[in-house]
């Protein structure tokens, strides 16, 4: 593994995680959470956990995001924090 790539992805994971809980729009939060999952999946792929990364890519970044969007669509995008 190449440490600069590792480091960049880790920083991105943290940024996406913080952004997902800070942003004041739930649809945005859902998409940022998808990005977070995808970064996480890259991190795991780098660490050699290919099966876990594959699952996270299809579940975390794929289906989970769809569920979030569906739930936000059925409720509201509004949030105060």
């Amino acid at each position, binding site marked *: 593994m190449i440490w600069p790539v590792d480091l960049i992805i880790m920083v991105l994971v943290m940024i996406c995680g913080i952004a997902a809980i800070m942003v004041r729009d739930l649809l945005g939060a859902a998409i940022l959470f998808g990005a977070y999952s995808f970064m996480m999946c890259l991190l795991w792929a780098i660490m050699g956990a*290919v*099966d876990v*990364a*594959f*699952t996270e890519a*299809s*579940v975390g970044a*794929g*289906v989970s995001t*769809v*569920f979030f*969007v*569906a*739930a936000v*669509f*059925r409720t509201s995008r509004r949030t105060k924090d």
Partner: protein
Amino acid sequence: MKAFALLTVLVLGGLLFYATPDFPPWGDPESPASLHVSPYYIEHSMEDTAVPNIVTAVLADYRGYDTMFETSVIFSAGIACLFLLRVYRRKSDKTRLYRHVHTGVTLRIAKGGKLPENTDEFERIDSLWVPYDLIIKVCSRLIVPFVQLFALYVIAHGHHSPGGGFQGGVIFGAAIILYAISNDLRRAFRRLNERAALLASAVGVLIYVGTGLLCLLLGGNFLDYSQLAALLHTNAIMARSHGILIVEIGVGLAVMAVMVSLYYNLSSAGRHDEGL
């Protein structure tokens, strides 16, 4: 609340931080976790199960019991969502809205009146403005079969490459969800309706549990696939390999059906109307 949250988080962080100096260095091949049980898996999975992907071998055979419950977890999530959200409504005699597919004209039909449900000429809609995008519909329809084919490949090739029942099932489910998003839920119901999805999820897990039970009836312990050798006309090792494939198919079926059913219930809030 924020101060309390910060305090809790800091205490927790401190606790986790406290132990870290005693961790073995990251990525160390000599760390205790890599020396006790896992070498057995790495060195013996090939001769025990004839499956090169060690993760699949451990997942579906050595620790197959965990995976059986993992599938049951996802099954119970599907049932839980249905149980919580589903709204059963009697056929209302309110006004119904239909759209003529080829022209995009919306028809409003008053009390009791009804258009034939299963024609391609008209489709039922639930609000006056429902987006209708031909390009997206056609493009998705082109993509869906390839996604499904890939999903089947992932399930079938889990022995040799990353993948397996769970990933394949999710991708297959995602293909159907894509179809449901680009068209609408009613159309997706024509391909895979609610009862079929429920039945498929239960049957999928039953394939898994039933395989285990069959091993038990054949005289071995629960989930001991080597007992299937007599039925499959192979030796014990290949029987394990085939047993893994059978349960992976079960997992794939169950996961696909549950993902679709979760999407149906979440996207329509249990009403099973046109969805997103």
